[in-house]
Protein backbone atom coordinates (compact mmCIF):
# COMPACT_ATOMS: atom_id res chain seq x y z
CA UNK A 1 0.00 0.00 0.00
CA UNK A 2 1.31 3.44 -0.95
CA UNK A 3 2.27 5.63 2.01
CA UNK A 4 1.77 9.32 1.40
CA UNK A 5 4.16 11.94 2.78
CA UNK A 6 3.10 15.17 4.49
CA UNK A 7 2.97 17.06 1.17
CA UNK A 8 0.71 14.50 -0.47
CA UNK A 9 -1.56 14.30 2.59
CA UNK A 10 -2.03 18.08 2.59
CA UNK A 11 -2.64 18.05 -1.17
CA UNK A 12 -5.25 15.29 -0.92
CA UNK A 13 -7.04 17.01 1.98
CA UNK A 14 -7.03 20.33 0.08
CA UNK A 15 -8.33 18.62 -3.07
CA UNK A 16 -11.11 16.78 -1.20
CA UNK A 17 -12.27 19.93 0.63
CA UNK A 18 -12.12 21.93 -2.62
CA UNK A 19 -14.18 19.26 -4.36
CA UNK A 20 -16.68 19.25 -1.51
CA UNK A 21 -16.93 23.07 -1.76
CA UNK A 22 -17.94 22.62 -5.41
CA UNK A 23 -20.69 20.27 -4.18
CA UNK A 24 -21.70 22.70 -1.40
CA UNK A 25 -22.52 25.26 -4.11
CA UNK A 26 -25.62 23.16 -4.77
CA UNK A 27 -26.82 23.18 -1.14
CA UNK A 28 -29.30 25.83 0.04
CA UNK A 29 -27.41 28.98 1.06
CA UNK A 30 -30.27 31.37 1.69
CA UNK A 31 -33.86 30.83 2.72
CA UNK A 32 -35.59 33.69 0.96
CA UNK A 33 -35.30 35.31 -2.44
CA UNK A 34 -35.57 32.46 -4.93
CA UNK A 35 -37.63 33.00 -8.06
CA UNK A 36 -40.20 30.53 -6.73
CA UNK A 37 -39.94 31.82 -3.17
CA UNK A 38 -37.91 28.77 -2.14
CA UNK A 39 -34.33 28.27 -1.01
CA UNK A 40 -31.45 29.65 -3.07
CA UNK A 41 -28.37 27.51 -3.67
CA UNK A 42 -24.85 28.93 -3.95
CA UNK A 43 -24.88 28.15 -7.66
CA UNK A 44 -28.27 29.81 -8.12
CA UNK A 45 -27.25 33.09 -6.52
CA UNK A 46 -25.67 34.51 -9.62
CA UNK A 47 -25.31 33.50 -13.29
CA UNK A 48 -21.53 33.56 -13.07
CA UNK A 49 -21.25 30.97 -10.27
CA UNK A 50 -19.55 28.72 -12.83
CA UNK A 51 -16.46 30.95 -12.66
CA UNK A 52 -15.44 30.19 -9.03
CA UNK A 53 -16.66 26.60 -9.54
CA UNK A 54 -14.24 26.09 -12.46
CA UNK A 55 -11.36 27.83 -10.65
CA UNK A 56 -11.73 25.76 -7.45
CA UNK A 57 -12.29 22.54 -9.45
CA UNK A 58 -9.06 23.16 -11.40
CA UNK A 59 -7.13 23.91 -8.17
CA UNK A 60 -8.47 20.72 -6.55
CA UNK A 61 -7.77 18.57 -9.60
CA UNK A 62 -4.18 19.88 -9.81
CA UNK A 63 -3.59 19.09 -6.13
CA UNK A 64 -5.00 15.59 -6.49
CA UNK A 65 -3.03 14.82 -9.65
CA UNK A 66 0.16 16.14 -8.04
CA UNK A 67 -0.43 14.03 -4.91
CA UNK A 68 -0.90 10.96 -7.11
CA UNK A 69 2.37 11.89 -8.88
CA UNK A 70 1.00 12.18 -12.39
CA UNK A 71 4.17 12.76 -14.43
CA UNK A 72 2.88 15.63 -16.58
CA UNK A 73 2.49 17.85 -13.51
CA UNK A 74 6.00 17.48 -12.12
CA UNK A 75 7.25 20.59 -13.93
CA UNK A 76 4.44 22.80 -12.56
CA UNK A 77 4.60 24.45 -9.10
CA UNK A 78 1.21 22.89 -8.33
CA UNK A 79 0.96 23.73 -4.58
CA UNK A 80 1.79 27.39 -5.35
CA UNK A 81 -0.75 27.57 -8.21
CA UNK A 82 -3.44 25.93 -6.07
CA UNK A 83 -2.70 28.22 -3.11
CA UNK A 84 -3.23 31.14 -5.49
CA UNK A 85 -6.48 29.77 -6.94
CA UNK A 86 -8.16 28.15 -3.93
CA UNK A 87 -9.03 31.36 -1.98
CA UNK A 88 -11.40 32.30 -4.83
CA UNK A 89 -13.92 29.86 -3.31
CA UNK A 90 -13.53 31.45 0.13
CA UNK A 91 -13.84 34.94 -1.39
CA UNK A 92 -17.00 33.99 -3.32
CA UNK A 93 -18.56 32.49 -0.18
CA UNK A 94 -17.62 35.53 1.93
CA UNK A 95 -19.07 37.93 -0.69
CA UNK A 96 -22.52 36.43 -0.35
CA UNK A 97 -22.37 35.68 3.37
CA UNK A 98 -21.73 39.37 4.01
CA UNK A 99 -24.55 40.45 1.72
CA UNK A 100 -27.21 37.83 2.37
CA UNK A 101 -29.98 37.41 4.90
CA UNK A 102 -31.60 34.26 6.27
CA UNK A 103 -28.39 32.29 5.83
CA UNK A 104 -28.82 28.51 5.71
CA UNK A 105 -26.52 25.58 6.47
CA UNK A 106 -25.18 25.36 2.90
CA UNK A 107 -23.45 28.74 3.14
CA UNK A 108 -21.80 27.86 6.48
CA UNK A 109 -20.76 24.45 5.11
CA UNK A 110 -19.24 26.16 2.05
CA UNK A 111 -17.42 28.65 4.28
CA UNK A 112 -15.89 25.87 6.39
CA UNK A 113 -14.95 23.76 3.37
CA UNK A 114 -13.36 26.66 1.47
CA UNK A 115 -11.42 27.80 4.55
CA UNK A 116 -10.16 24.22 5.04
CA UNK A 117 -9.22 23.90 1.37
CA UNK A 118 -7.24 27.17 1.53
CA UNK A 119 -5.50 26.05 4.73
CA UNK A 120 -4.40 22.66 3.35
CA UNK A 121 -3.36 24.11 -0.03
CA UNK A 122 -1.23 26.68 1.84
CA UNK A 123 0.24 23.95 4.08
CA UNK A 124 1.11 21.95 0.93
CA UNK A 125 2.79 25.03 -0.55
CA UNK A 126 4.78 25.68 2.65
CA UNK A 127 5.82 22.00 2.83
CA UNK A 128 6.79 22.05 -0.85
CA UNK A 129 8.93 25.19 -0.37
CA UNK A 130 10.74 23.64 2.57
CA UNK A 131 11.50 20.63 0.36
Amino acid at each position, binding site marked *: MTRFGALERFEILGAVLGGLWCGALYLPWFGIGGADGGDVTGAGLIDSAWLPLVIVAVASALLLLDALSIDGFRSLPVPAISTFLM*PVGLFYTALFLLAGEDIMYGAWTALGLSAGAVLFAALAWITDRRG
Partner: protein
Amino acid sequence: MDLQGISREQKELGAAVCMLLFIISLFLKWQTFGPISGSGADLGSWPLALLIALAAGGIMAADALGMDLPIRRMNPTSVATYLMSLLVFYVLVFMFAIDGISYGVWLALLFSVVGLVLTFSVFRQDTR
Protein backbone atom coordinates in the same frame (compact mmCIF):
# COMPACT_ATOMS: atom_id res chain seq x y z
CA MET B 1 3.71 48.62 -23.73
CA ASP B 2 7.15 48.70 -22.10
CA LEU B 3 6.92 48.98 -18.33
CA GLN B 4 10.69 48.89 -17.91
CA GLY B 5 11.00 52.64 -18.57
CA ILE B 6 8.84 53.40 -15.54
CA SER B 7 10.51 53.50 -12.11
CA ARG B 8 9.43 51.18 -9.32
CA GLU B 9 7.98 54.05 -7.27
CA GLN B 10 6.01 55.35 -10.27
CA LYS B 11 4.51 51.90 -10.84
CA GLU B 12 3.59 51.61 -7.16
CA LEU B 13 2.00 55.04 -7.04
CA GLY B 14 0.24 54.31 -10.35
CA ALA B 15 -1.21 51.12 -8.84
CA ALA B 16 -2.31 53.03 -5.71
CA VAL B 17 -4.05 55.64 -7.90
CA CYS B 18 -5.75 52.82 -9.82
CA MET B 19 -7.13 51.48 -6.52
CA LEU B 20 -8.45 54.94 -5.68
CA LEU B 21 -10.13 55.15 -9.10
CA PHE B 22 -11.49 51.62 -8.61
CA ILE B 23 -13.12 52.77 -5.36
CA ILE B 24 -14.67 55.76 -7.16
CA SER B 25 -15.92 53.45 -9.94
CA LEU B 26 -17.83 51.45 -7.30
CA PHE B 27 -20.12 54.47 -6.99
CA LEU B 28 -20.67 54.89 -10.74
CA LYS B 29 -23.40 53.23 -12.79
CA TRP B 30 -22.78 49.49 -13.11
CA GLN B 31 -26.14 48.42 -14.50
CA THR B 32 -28.81 49.93 -16.69
CA PHE B 33 -31.79 47.71 -17.24
CA GLY B 34 -34.73 49.62 -18.73
CA PRO B 35 -35.65 52.39 -16.30
CA ILE B 36 -33.64 50.76 -13.50
CA SER B 37 -29.99 51.53 -12.88
CA GLY B 38 -27.63 50.64 -10.06
CA SER B 39 -24.08 51.33 -8.94
CA GLY B 40 -21.44 48.93 -7.69
CA ALA B 41 -22.29 50.12 -4.18
CA ASP B 42 -25.77 48.63 -4.57
CA LEU B 43 -24.18 45.17 -4.38
CA GLY B 44 -24.35 43.92 -0.81
CA SER B 45 -20.70 42.89 -0.80
CA TRP B 46 -19.22 46.19 -1.97
CA PRO B 47 -17.63 47.03 1.45
CA LEU B 48 -15.42 43.95 1.04
CA ALA B 49 -14.22 45.20 -2.38
CA LEU B 50 -13.66 48.64 -0.87
CA LEU B 51 -11.56 47.23 2.00
CA ILE B 52 -9.48 45.09 -0.39
CA ALA B 53 -8.84 48.06 -2.69
CA LEU B 54 -7.89 50.26 0.28
CA ALA B 55 -5.51 47.61 1.62
CA ALA B 56 -3.88 46.94 -1.77
CA GLY B 57 -3.58 50.64 -2.65
CA GLY B 58 -2.33 51.48 0.85
CA ILE B 59 0.39 48.80 0.67
CA MET B 60 1.60 50.07 -2.70
CA ALA B 61 1.55 53.75 -1.65
CA ALA B 62 3.33 53.00 1.64
CA ASP B 63 6.00 50.96 -0.16
CA ALA B 64 6.51 53.74 -2.75
CA LEU B 65 6.90 56.33 0.02
CA GLY B 66 9.38 54.13 1.91
CA MET B 67 7.17 53.57 4.94
CA ASP B 68 7.61 50.48 7.13
CA LEU B 69 4.75 48.03 6.82
CA PRO B 70 3.72 45.66 9.63
CA ILE B 71 3.98 42.61 7.31
CA ARG B 72 7.51 41.48 8.03
CA ARG B 73 7.32 37.86 6.93
CA MET B 74 5.60 38.52 3.60
CA ASN B 75 6.62 40.47 0.54
CA PRO B 76 4.21 43.48 0.50
CA THR B 77 4.01 43.51 -3.29
CA SER B 78 3.00 39.83 -3.37
CA VAL B 79 0.17 40.58 -0.90
CA ALA B 80 -0.94 43.59 -3.01
CA THR B 81 -0.76 41.52 -6.22
CA TYR B 82 -2.95 38.88 -4.67
CA LEU B 83 -5.49 41.39 -3.36
CA MET B 84 -5.73 43.07 -6.77
CA SER B 85 -6.27 39.71 -8.50
CA LEU B 86 -9.24 39.21 -6.14
CA LEU B 87 -10.64 42.57 -7.29
CA VAL B 88 -10.37 41.50 -10.95
CA PHE B 89 -12.23 38.30 -10.01
CA TYR B 90 -14.87 40.39 -8.16
CA VAL B 91 -15.55 42.55 -11.21
CA LEU B 92 -15.58 39.59 -13.60
CA VAL B 93 -18.07 37.65 -11.46
CA PHE B 94 -20.53 40.55 -11.64
CA MET B 95 -19.80 41.32 -15.30
CA PHE B 96 -20.83 37.81 -16.25
CA ALA B 97 -23.91 37.96 -14.02
CA ILE B 98 -25.36 41.43 -14.66
CA ASP B 99 -27.73 42.13 -17.54
CA GLY B 100 -27.28 45.56 -19.12
CA ILE B 101 -23.80 46.32 -17.81
CA SER B 102 -22.91 50.01 -17.83
CA TYR B 103 -19.72 52.08 -18.00
CA GLY B 104 -18.95 51.82 -14.27
CA VAL B 105 -18.18 48.09 -14.56
CA TRP B 106 -15.84 48.67 -17.51
CA LEU B 107 -14.02 51.38 -15.57
CA ALA B 108 -13.78 49.11 -12.50
CA LEU B 109 -12.35 46.34 -14.71
CA LEU B 110 -9.89 48.75 -16.35
CA PHE B 111 -8.58 50.15 -13.05
CA SER B 112 -8.32 46.76 -11.36
CA VAL B 113 -6.48 45.22 -14.36
CA VAL B 114 -4.08 48.17 -14.79
CA GLY B 115 -3.41 48.15 -11.03
CA LEU B 116 -2.75 44.40 -11.16
CA VAL B 117 -0.37 44.71 -14.13
CA LEU B 118 1.64 47.48 -12.45
CA THR B 119 1.80 45.62 -9.11
CA PHE B 120 2.70 42.34 -10.78
CA SER B 121 5.48 44.12 -12.64
CA VAL B 122 6.93 45.35 -9.30
CA PHE B 123 6.49 41.87 -7.79
CA ARG B 124 8.42 40.35 -10.74
CA GLN B 125 11.22 42.88 -10.17
CA ASP B 126 11.34 41.95 -6.47
CA THR B 127 11.50 38.21 -7.06
CA ARG B 128 14.21 38.32 -9.74
